[in-house]
């Protein structure tokens, strides 16, 4: 998957041509794309190789040099990759900078020698990076997370077929990568007339998740990435209960034996409640989904859009009109229609609202790393006639 993003941008830049317009009989306008210069990239820890592969290739393909800072939780991936491929690049073109945020990330983001910063992370840091960029009048792109609604209309249960099976899996994808995904479908919205039957299937599938050693190929959910994530998720389970959310399954740490005894394992958890609860509004970044029911399309949309964020969303239905109209009305940059967590190259991905801006994993990202040189050429031998 990561390799495909490298191949995609390597091909996209070769297939590209500049544009030319003949403005009048003597005047030609050439639009040439030029690199911005030096790009600072700050990537997160949840998918260390994939996040690097979303950010580096479009910046390099468009002729920039890059200073990339991996997250301090996962510093090894970028270094190991560069040990393998460093000799492909001329010296100085790709630079990996390690260090803690205040000591390495902030100096990178605020340095006057940087021409643009691309960031994936959280809102306050995003705000600071934009502030530093304003000092240098630099462009930025950012992805700041979400609280993505995954909406299931009643027609998904019209038949007990492969599609229903796919829909149930789609609801359980909240536990994918231990929920440490920016687009985690962490709000589950189910139409009220199928709610009980649908949720019985979702709970059954969630309880069948194999939670074990992440190095075991049969494991579906491993440990959280760090102690502080583990503690943060547990504190959300606590406030969820206090606010009156009902635990449909999970709801606690998961204690495994042997070498895994002190691992940061959290049981895949389904909390039932309403959209004003904090567990419906904040990014928990764990295998935790908050579920609520809706009666009709209007209520589904009202709940789906009642969030600060707009990164991802899922719409599941057998009704073609519903699939289109609901998807258009959701304020999110990526709406998965009858699927979820698919991330192919050539489908642009990024947020609306407080989830950020910029469009990665698509050739339109190349223009976020470039500026346009317009050459306006006169083939007229005669003067303007002013002086």
């Amino acid at each position: 998957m990561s390799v495909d993003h490298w191949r995609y941008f390597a091909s996209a830049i070769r297939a590209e041509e500049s544009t030319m317009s003949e403005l009048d009989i003597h005047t030609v306008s050439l639009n040439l794309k030029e690199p911005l210069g030096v790009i600072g990239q700050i990537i997160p820890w949840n998918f260390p190789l994939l996040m690097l592969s979303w950010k580096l290739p479009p910046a390099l393909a468009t002729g920039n040099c890059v200073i990339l800072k991996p997250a301090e939780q996962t510093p090894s991936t970028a270094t190991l990759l560069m040990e393998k491929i460093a000799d492909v690049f001329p010296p100085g073109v790709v630079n990996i900078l390690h260090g803690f945020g205040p000591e390495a990330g902030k100096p990178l983001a605020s340095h006057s020698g940087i021409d643009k910063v691309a960031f994936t992370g959280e809102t306050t840091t995003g705000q600071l990076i934009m502030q530093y960029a304003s000092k240098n009048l630099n462009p930025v792109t950012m992805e700041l997370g979400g609280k993505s609604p995954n909406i299931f209309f009643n027609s998904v249960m019209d038949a007990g077929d492969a599609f229903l099976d796919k829909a149930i899996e789609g609801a359980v994808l909240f536990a994918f990568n231990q929920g440490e995904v920016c687009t985690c479908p962490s709000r589950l919205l189910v139409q009220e007339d199928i709610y009980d039957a649908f949720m019985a299937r979702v709970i059954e599938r969630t309880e069948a998740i194999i939670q074990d050693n992440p190095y075991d190929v049969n494991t579906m959910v491993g440990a959280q990435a760090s102690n502080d994530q583990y503690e943060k998720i547990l504190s959300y389970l606590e406030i969820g209960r206090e606010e009156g959310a009902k635990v449909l399954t999970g709801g606690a740490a998961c204690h495994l034996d042997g070498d895994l005894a002190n691992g940061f394992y959290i049981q895949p958890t389904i909390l039932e409640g309403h959209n004003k609860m904090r567990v419906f509004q904040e990014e928990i970044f764990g295998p935790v989904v908050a579920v609520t029911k809706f009666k009709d399309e209007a209520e589904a949309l009202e709940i789906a859009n009642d969030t600060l964020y707009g990164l991802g969303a899922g719409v599941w239905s057998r009704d073609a009109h519903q699939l289109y109209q609901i998807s258009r009305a959701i304020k999110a940059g990526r709406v998965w229609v009858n699927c979820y967590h698919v991330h192919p190259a050539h489908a642009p991905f990024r947020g609306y609202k407080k989830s950020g801006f910029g469009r990665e994993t698509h050739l339109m990202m190349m223009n976020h790393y470039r500026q346009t040189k317009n050459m306006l050429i006169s083939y007229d031998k005669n003067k303007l006639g002013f002086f």
Partner: protein
Amino acid sequence: MNYTRVAITEAATSILDQLKAKYGDLIFHQSGGCCDGSSPMVFEEGEMYLYESDILLGQLDGINYYMNQDQFDYWKHTHLTVDVTEGRGASFSLEIPLGVRFIIRSRLLTPEENSELNN
């Protein structure tokens, strides 16, 4: 009664004292969003531009605690306690090089607290 929206544990205060000795005046800003978000972040005072959209929730150990208005609307019925736990972070929060992370523990406001603070 003077109720508060925010509090801090002794362990977190001791980390904060170390940071104050090193950096001087500080602020807390509550982050939303993914990765290192949903966490309180501590910065040198003046590091982050604050606007009318940043709500002052209270003072902890002499340090102002802010949250964005939009986020506050969803959080204001809860009481927040800043604690600290071991961890590595990638944000710009100043405690991270010490190998610890500030973390929020929450509870609902009591009806008395709620009627004084939110009316």
